[in-house]
């Protein structure tokens, strides 16, 4: 169980970096995203790049930071025997996974452009979700 939480903490840390990169671009600190195509800028310039006036990437930063904190705390010896950190990791990453599915569908069907950094984030949250599910205690 500890291994699952450690893996989630590492993945979430990478997710924080990716989301922070996109967020820094959204608030103008970074000028042009290294994307390999114009897709990132098209996606980031679309109206879907903001939710309630806040860049979507910022929600990603907060989400990954939460998963990181929970994963790290859950990997501590005192919490390793407890099941609730993994359950919460599964629930929260599940919400993130569904939100990411929605964003990816927007890229595919509405914006018609692919942002590779967003896809990287999608891969990370999927990996976290799968890891959390695999770490859930099984009834014997």
């Amino acid at each position, binding site marked *: 169980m500890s291994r699952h939480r*450690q893996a989630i*903490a*590492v993945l979430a*840390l*990478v997710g*924080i*970096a990716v989301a*922070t*990169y996109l967020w*820094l*671009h959204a608030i*103008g*600190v*970074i*000028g*042009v*995203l*290294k994307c390999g*195509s*114009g897709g990132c*800028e*098209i996606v*980031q*310039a*679309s109206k879907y790049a903001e939710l309630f006036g806040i860049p979507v990437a910022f929600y990603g930063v907060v989400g990954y930071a939460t998963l990181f904190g929970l994963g*790290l705390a859950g*990997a501590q010896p005192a919490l390793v025997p407890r099941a609730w950190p993994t359950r919460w990791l599964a629930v929260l990453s599940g919400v993130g996974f569904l939100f990411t599915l929605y964003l990816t569908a927007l890229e595919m069907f509405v914006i018609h452009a692919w942002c590779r950094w967003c896809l990287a984030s999608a891969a990370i949250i999927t990996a976290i979700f799968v890891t959390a599910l695999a770490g859930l205690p099984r009834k014997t």
Partner: protein
Amino acid sequence: MNRFYVLLGVVAAAAVAFLIYSTQQEPGGAAAASNPNVPITAQDRAFPGYILGSDSAPVKVVEFVDYECPICAMFATVQFPTIRDQLINTGKVQWRLRDYPLAPTTHEWSHLAANAVACASEQGKAWDMVDALFDHHDWALQKSNPTSVFRGLAQSVGVNTTTWDACLSSNKYAGRIQASANEGDSLGVNGTPTLFINGTMVRDRATSDLVQRIADSLIAATKKK
């Protein structure tokens, strides 16, 4: 457990290094390519840009643009038609387009596109060429030299391509384009599109609603005086 923290430390250090590198490198990458070897004449510096709208318009907008930039293309095709209809054609706003081609490492064909517009401007077709470049922006996603695409677009908007070809080959507007980019640098532009409304840089995302709101408030303030 120790190995876990070592791994966390390595990932964290790599992430921080990447983010610091990005914040330091990217604005440079988004800045116009500065070429000190391009001679700039007083005439180049005096060029005001491509103007649309009445000189008597109470609100003057300057847009620093890179024709290869996808956000500029989105702004030009989604937001600008509304601005043109509701603000420029009604005499409220005068729009001035300034070249700000990003460095070739960021946008390889920006200078070529700026030259294509400059050469079309000789024939009074600057804005037609700008519209054509943005309306058919697929060229920006191609790796190959888009000169022939630009020629086709120039022809489609009524440019005499024999004259346009000669102009493009001569690169005679390099100084004018560089002067425009230098002016952008001096004003603090570090990405495109960047708008200045009555001399004040707009830091929010450029939209027709935003331009309309600012223009309306400026016009209302002028009337009160």
